[in-house]
């Protein structure tokens, strides 16, 4: 996992997002003249190649869920492009959007909220099967049972006529995964798919996802804030901050040699199981809160909280700086990363 899969560059990406912007207008009061806008996703580009697992990480409110919803067509993009297998999906009519949905599926965050409580598992699974005509009507029951067997709910037949409230959280999430793979998608977007689960169940679900990936040649876009999950499952990591990508690269590089101070702080916030290692680690604690996405800071969005910020950071948005092996950091000082990580930050003289 140290390097991106060699074939990734060659094959056409399953998902390509280019300069995506999703803005939400905030309803002002009656007397407020100007309409304010939340810049939930503000110029994000990324690609997921066949067989690849890409993680999108960042703290709450950084726009990662909005990004996922835009990819699924659940929110309208304000600007930019989303292509699935080269075909644009923005501005599609209902019929073409349905066809698109066959290729991209989603596993939702909360297994207690993502199954209709009034429907049996059979009718939940039958919905995508019959809408997309995956199997003839007479075989839906058998196919649904097969899907449940695939995700480890076996014998599937025993689960078909049950309601979600009869299941545990792990069983529900397995059923949700069965629904996602029912239409034979190429890309599965998992939005915090394991964060609501117990730690033991979490490992099982991750194992299941890995098995299904190998079995069906799936690609995953894994939205999460759990760095442990990222490390165990993902090939590449995209770090988001306030609607923008701050850094992306192969998982191992992001963990061991982050090129952006925010990534470094994020990695440092990840608890280590060994107290000796934890004590030896230099902690980078960020001060302050996430600025409002309604009026994001000018220049580099992270400069208000950055431990190494200089005057330039408040003026100019940093370009993407290539750090090799496909790692790119959006920081003016990315090239100096080893130096400021060693504690000799260039910021000391200019900090107030």
């Amino acid at each position, binding site marked *: 996992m140290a390097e991106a899969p060699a074939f990734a560059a060659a094959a056409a990406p399953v998902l390509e997002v280019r300069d995506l912007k999703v803005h939400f207008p905030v309803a002002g009061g009656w007397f407020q003249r100007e309409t304010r806008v939340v810049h939930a996703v503000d110029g994000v580009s990324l690609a997921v190649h066949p067989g690849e697992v890409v993680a999108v990480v960042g703290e709450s409110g950084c726009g990662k869920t909005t990004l996922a919803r835009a990819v699924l067509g659940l929110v309208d993009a304000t600007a930019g492009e989303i292509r699935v297998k080269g075909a644009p999906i923005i501005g599609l009519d209902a019929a073409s959007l349905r066809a698109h*949905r066959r290729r991209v599926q989603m596993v939702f965050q909360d297994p207690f909220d993502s199954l*209709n409580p009034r429907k049996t598992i059979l009718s939940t699974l039958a*919905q*995508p099967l019959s809408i997309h005509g995956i199997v003839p009507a007479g075989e839906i029951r058998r196919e649904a049972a097969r899907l449940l067997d695939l995700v480890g709910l*076996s014998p599937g037949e*025993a689960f078909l006529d049950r309601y979600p409230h*009869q*299941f*545990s959280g792990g069983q529900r999430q397995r059923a949700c995964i069965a629904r996602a793979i029912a239409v034979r998608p190429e890309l599965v977007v998992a939005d915090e798919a394991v964060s609501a689960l117990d730690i033991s*169940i979490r490992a099982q679900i991750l194992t299941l996802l890995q098995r299904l990936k190998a079995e069906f040649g799936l690609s995953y876009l894994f939205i999460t804030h759990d760095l442990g999950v990222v490390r165990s499952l993902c090939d590449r990591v995209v770090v988001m901050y306030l609607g923008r990508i701050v850094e992306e690269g192969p998982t191992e590089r992001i963990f061991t040699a982050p090129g952006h101070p925010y990534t470094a702080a994020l990695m440092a916030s990840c608890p280590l199981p060994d107290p000796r290692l934890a004590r030896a680690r230099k902690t980078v604690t960020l001060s302050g809160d996430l600025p409002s996405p309604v009026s994001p800071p000018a220049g580099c969005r992270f400069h208000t909280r950055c431990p190494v910020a200089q005057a330039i950071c408040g003026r100019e948005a940093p370009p993407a700086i290539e750090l090799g092996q496909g790692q790119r950091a959006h920081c003016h000082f990315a090239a100096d990363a080893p130096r400021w990580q060693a504690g000799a930050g260039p910021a000391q003289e200019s900090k107030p």
Partner: protein
Amino acid sequence: MSTAGAMQAAEATAQMPVIAPHVPAWRIFARNGTAAFGAIVLAVLIPLAVLGPFLAPFDPSRVNAGPPMAGPHWPHVFGTDDLGRDVFSRVADGLRVSLLVGFGAASFSTGLGVVVGGVAGFFGRFIDDLLMRITEIFQVIPRFFLGVLLVAFFGASIFNIIFAIAILSWPEVARVVRSEFLSLRARQFVDAARVAGASRRTLIFSEILPNAMGPVVVNGTLLVGQAMLLEAGLSYLGLGDPSLVSLGVMLQEAQQIMRTAWWTTAFPGLMIFLAVLSLNLVGDGLNDVLNPRSRER
């Protein structure tokens, strides 16, 4: 054991089909003692109302069926009124009319409220604003007086009474349904259906509406009781359907003789009380059954 084997074993143990039992609806309902009481009372009252003409010992409109103004005695168990009509037979008949008005008005207003509230809640924005302003106009009018006005204007037929009561009650339903739709629309299972490719119609009728029905049904049972009271109030003011005996009409007729013949008002009043009370209790019980929370956890 190899690691892969251990992993598989770990996965397998967790996959034993441990499925919680499905609790039947009646059992959840019966957990609530007062609701069960209400259901039993209704189980007596509704057959009495429906089968009234067959069960009643006398023709409800027959004058001099017994001695006038006689207290409860056999065969006139609820006594007789000033014209010698059998109060029990009239109560059974009146209950039928009252329940008809109650259920009629409740289903009419629920239907209208579900459509208006559902459309407003699902589509939101401009449509929502428009429909909710209309709803509010109906809500700020004092109900009873608009009822009096409508019935006085269009005539006191039973259909007009049902219509008037329904017109007065739907805004409540519309608001309940709208808020249910608004919150359900954002639930993950609705998004999941959208991702599965469901059409707008499927989203409304198979994902959102079934989950919004709980409060609607509960509100509906409460509406039946309210409509019965409203009808009794209108009838008491002399605005009841003159060709039919309802419990309210009986109360109005017995006004003059209330002091000397208590049974002529006590029994119709008791029927209204019992019917409305038990409908409310049943509503509470249904709330338990239809609320998915009562099954979960």
